[in-house]
């Protein structure tokens, strides 16, 4: 049983046959009940389009979208019962916070509409949950970005959605608020157990918050897996380069462990061992060209004996600054390398 199942979904942009760039290209994805899944990718990768397609805000040209096993491909957005938090919140600006959250309940057909007293109770409970009980009578314009975000969340939860979709939930917030809200959202997810998808372009955010991460690129899913899986075992060069730093290195015996082929090889700077030339360590000789300290790490720009340049990141211990100063000769080797077929 899957909460959301996306089967071979394709959507064209531009709308004209022939020159249309595919916004989504044969995308398939199964979201498990209760999980927190991140859709990660650069802008234009189709992640927001996929999220909007699930909500019924975009139509798709082919494929199927199932919610709790039912085919929802042609179900209009207003009948899907999906909680959606828009990137810029899309709060109703002429309504109070309370009215915003109550909107979905009041919009129900008369037979299904809870009595006004019950609506009030539920709205206030939600506002308490997002810590905005005192702001019920304010208008969205009088709130900060983080507060608006939480109103949007409360509004989406008010309709008791089967899944929660968030489009760049932290995109418009400053760094401090972002971190707080991230932790708070994770806790909320654990408390509610609601299947949640969120879109982000920030790999750190995806890796830190999500149970699983789906990485999108030009309308395709490149890889899907737990944060550890996608970081440690990237399936494609794109994933390796998008998740953290990765440098392309020549496939040289000695530098890589194991056999060297002519394939594309990517190495993360922190997976490169840098040892003094005199140490007799394995690897190939190199010269340090530039060295800077960044936080707890030391970044080195190295030039191999064949002229290739690459970047390495080593722990900043006491002697490092002297031993690995510009001009020093060293031996380098990649501890871990990601190899891809040509």
């Amino acid at each position: 049983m899957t909460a959301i199942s996306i089967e071979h979904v394709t959507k064209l942009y531009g709308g004209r046959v022939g020159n249309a760039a595919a916004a989504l290209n044969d995308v398939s994805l199964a979201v498990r009940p209760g999980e927190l899944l991140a859709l990660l990718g650069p802008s234009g990768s189709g992640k927001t389009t996929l999220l909007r397609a699930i909500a019924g805000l975009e139509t798709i040209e082919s494929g199927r979208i199932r919610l709790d096993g039912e085919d929802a491909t042609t179900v209009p957005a207003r009948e899907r019962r999906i909680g959606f938090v828009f990137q810029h919140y899309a709060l109703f600006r002429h309504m109070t916070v309370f009215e915003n959250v109550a909107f979905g309940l009041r919009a129900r057909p008369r037979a299904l509409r809870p009595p006004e007293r019950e609506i009030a109770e539920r709205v206030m409970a939600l506002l308490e949950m997002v810590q905005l009980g005192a702001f019920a009578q304010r208008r969205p314009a009088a709130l900060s970005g983080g507060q608006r975000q939480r109103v949007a969340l409360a509004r989406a939860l008010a309709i008791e959605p089967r899944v929660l979709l968030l489009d760049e939930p932290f995109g418009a917030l400053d760094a401090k608020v972002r971190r707080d809200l991230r932790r708070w959202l994770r806790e909320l997810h654990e408390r509610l157990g609601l299947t949640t998808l969120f879109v982000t372009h920030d790999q750190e955010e995806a890796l830190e918050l999500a149970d699983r991460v789906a990485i999108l690129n030009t309308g395709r899913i490149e890889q899907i897996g737990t944060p550890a899986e996608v970081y440690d075992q990237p399936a494609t060069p794109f994933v390796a380069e998008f998740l953290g730093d990765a440098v392309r290195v020549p496939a040289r015996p000695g530098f890589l462990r194991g056999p060297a082929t002519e394939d594309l090889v990517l190495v993360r700077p922190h997976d490169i061992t840098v040892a003094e030339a005199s140490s007799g360590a394995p690897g190939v000789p190199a010269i340090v060209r530039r060295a800077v300290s960044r936080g707890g790490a030391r970044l080195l720009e190295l030039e191999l004996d064949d002229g290739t340049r690459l970047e390495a990141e080593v722990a900043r211990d006491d002697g490092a600054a002297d031993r690995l100063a510009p001009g020093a000769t060293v031996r380098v080797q990649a501890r871990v390398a990601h190899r891809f077929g040509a």
Partner: protein
Amino acid sequence: MRLAADTRPALRDPSGIAWLLIAAALAWILLLLVLPLATVLWEALHKGLPRFLEAVKEPDTLASIRLTLLVAAIAVPVNLVLGVAMAWAIAKHEFRGRAMLTALIDLPISVSPVVSGLVFVLLFGAQGWLGPWLQERDIKIIFALPGMVLATIFVTLPYVARTLIPIMRRQGVDEEEAAATLGAGAWTTLARVSLPNAGLALLYGVLLTNARAMGEFGAVSVVSGSIRGETNTMPLHVEILHNEYDEVGAFSVAALLALLAVVTLVLKVWLERRMQARAGVGG
């Protein structure tokens, strides 16, 4: 509000020139706008308030006031519905031919009012395409209320849509999409989300439609036949009284219409302030 030139010396004009320009602008406004308005009020009132009231209470004048209100009471709601529908389709949706539909809405503004009236005469008049058919059934459109209402709707058709479209487009469809994910249907979305958001612009559009509907002269003059006490609206009555050299009478009716214009302008300024205040705190 502060002027850029207050804090930016490079933008300051020589003060002599500034005052010269201000004087020229004010003189122009006084001569071209204030003087006609003042003339209307003066001519209506200079023989005393009783004469003015007497002129207004004239049965034919009262009939013209009633008819003007009636025409506006039909034309304004019709154009409200049409204007909202046109704005909704054009501002919130994308479809082929949208640019053409937008241009078509503007057509009544650029067509001469006389032509606007004539088209209905040629369609419904005795010599018109449907004239014989209507005559057989004893339906009177031209030289009667329906023709005047039609001509008025034609002339005032663009105003609601034209005021709504820019603001509705600027607001985008985010809130409508949010309403859809929350389960709202078409009517709820329109009545609770889109129209309240465009509320002041909508009010302004209605105001403008009303002012033009009550004041329309050319188009209505062509279709009405100007039958005293029957198909005579206020602007037409001004003409009749003017032609009869009843200057106090003509200007008394004109003064009422001028009052309508002034009220419209005052409300417009008020609405604009409200809109600015709202845009100021909105984000």
